[in-house]
């Protein structure tokens, strides 16, 4: 992509844009194909998702029966919440496949990434989007099917929630990636990030509403959750897809997701620039 002649700005910009689109499309494709290799791993993921789904659904359905009002959920909508969240878990990972980047930050190989003509944040994002798309057919959709066949889910009958839901899921995948990217970059300053990653995973899944919906939190805990990007990673897309929220309310939740994409995206870029200055490359 180098060697575009100076001057003749109009054409150069157009060409650069087209080549950037081609580049990132190729990266998305590569992420997709890499994930596609791990068929057994994806079946394993589906199986685990289903086991946890059965236990969660059994407990929460009983809780809905026992409580007069369980955060506005009934049998069908709690089922939709459980199985949609299990289905999305493969796409919006909390413990990411950024392990490779984690190692590169730790051993300094990221210096090579800095020299490449691909933006580090966008490049890894494209790869992760490809991976996420690839999890839907073998893992996401079957999880929801398993739930439909065993528990019966209340799903919306109009196309609106599904269309906006797709946008919401896409934003959720991006927010999840950007958060994990920030966590990995802390590795520029800390040698071992395992503890920080575990902390991120634990508080993230909890505040995202994975085990108990955010709507069940007492107000102080709901305020804590709302101050973090985590509900945008799971509760938001589940709420939009299941039709729990519609119309203006749904659009405002999606807008909040977009806000987090910007905020954490910028935080990631700042950390990346600071980490680049910090990076010490040895060798000769």
């Amino acid at each position, binding site marked *: 992509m180098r060697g575009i002649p100076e001057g003749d700005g109009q054409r150069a910009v157009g060409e650069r844009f087209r080549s950037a689109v081609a580049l990132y499309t190729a990266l998305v494709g590569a992420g997709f194909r890499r994930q596609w290799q*791990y068929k*057994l*791993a994806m*079946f*394993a*993921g589906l*199986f*685990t998702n289903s*086991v*946890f789904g*059965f*236990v969660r659904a*059994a*407990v*929460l*359905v*009983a*809780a809905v029966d*026992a*409580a007069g*009002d*369980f*955060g506005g959920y009934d049998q069908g909508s709690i089922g939709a919440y459980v199985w949609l969240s299990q289905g999305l878990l493969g796409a919006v990972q909390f413990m990411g496949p950024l392990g490779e980047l984690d190692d590169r930050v730790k051993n300094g190989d990221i210096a090579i990434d800095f020299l490449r003509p691909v933006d580090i944040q966008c490049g890894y994002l494209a790869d992760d989007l490809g991976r996420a798309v690839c999890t839907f057919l073998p893992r996401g959709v079957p999880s929801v099917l398993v739930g439909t066949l065993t528990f019966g889910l209340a799903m919306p009958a109009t196309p609106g929630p599904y269309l906006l839901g797709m946008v919401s899921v896409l934003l959720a995948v991006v927010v999840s990636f950007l958060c994990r990217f920030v966590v990995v970059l802390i590795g520029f300053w*800390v*040698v*071992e*990030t*395992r*503890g*920080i990653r*575990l*902390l991120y995973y*634990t*508080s993230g899944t*909890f505040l995202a509403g994975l*085990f*108990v919906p955010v709507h*069940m*939190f*007492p107000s102080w805990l709901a305020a804590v959750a709302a101050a973090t990007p985590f509900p945008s990673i799971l509760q938001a897309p589940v709420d939009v897809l299941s039709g729990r929220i519609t119309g203006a309310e749904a659009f405002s939740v999606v807008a909040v997701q977009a806000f987090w994409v910007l905020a954490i995206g910028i935080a990631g870029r700042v950390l990346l620039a600071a980490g680049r200055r910090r990076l010490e490359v040895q060798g000769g």
Partner: protein
Amino acid sequence: MVEVATPRTRSWSTPYVAVLRSRIRAQRSYRLSFASEVVSAFVVGLVELAEVWLIFRTARILGGLDLDAALLLFGLSHSSFALSQVLFGHLDNLPALIRLGQLDAYHLRPQPLLLQLITSDISLRRFARASVSIVALGVGLVRNDIAWETSTVTLLTLTILGGIALFGGMFVCAAGLQFYLIDGSELTNSFTYGGSFAATQPASVFPTPMKLLFGFAIPVSFTAYLPTLALLRLPGPPLLPAWLAWLTPAAALWVWLLALVLWRSGTRHYQGGGG
């Protein structure tokens, strides 16, 4: 004449103890990362407890148990799971050892592979997670109306020891299957972590197939749900009567039988890492 210094007591366990000591020293030497791991593990325990509290706060009574009884249930299942994880949890690393060809090094040493792997590491941070559940167990024991007799103490001891053994057996089952499913390690997580998750729930809310699964096939109900019923003198649902709580050691034996069969067949299947 120089005499070679010999360790005072030399038993079969000497090499294992030496490895464990060095592991513990190694973990303490990176203070910041060790501290962050301990804090995280502590938060894991707190979050798991918070999930139980959030559900019972609204539902009040779930599957015949109230919040106090649920604390006892949580304390029993998580204490034994977390302690078992201290001893056996690192067997989860087996796929990485196989993929990197490092397992072959263990095969060369004249000691049983499983014993070497179990003693290859001990994660101090996991005690932090256990501490939350042990406190929950204590609170659960105090807040519930339990008739303290010799039989109660016996049952409690049997339950904790049996629970640690049972979950340990599940880690070994999972490890045995890893030899076949190198990419599919998540599949075995559904036994270990899914089993521990199921153990924390009142099994009376499960539909019948799940009662049979977690009651008898992967008998995690023996680690907490059945003992909770017995300690609180509750009758329990059909299929899972409270007196079964006394059979926790038998359930642990059953899991270890499965574990040793799977481990044997797995190590026989293993062809080496190549190279």
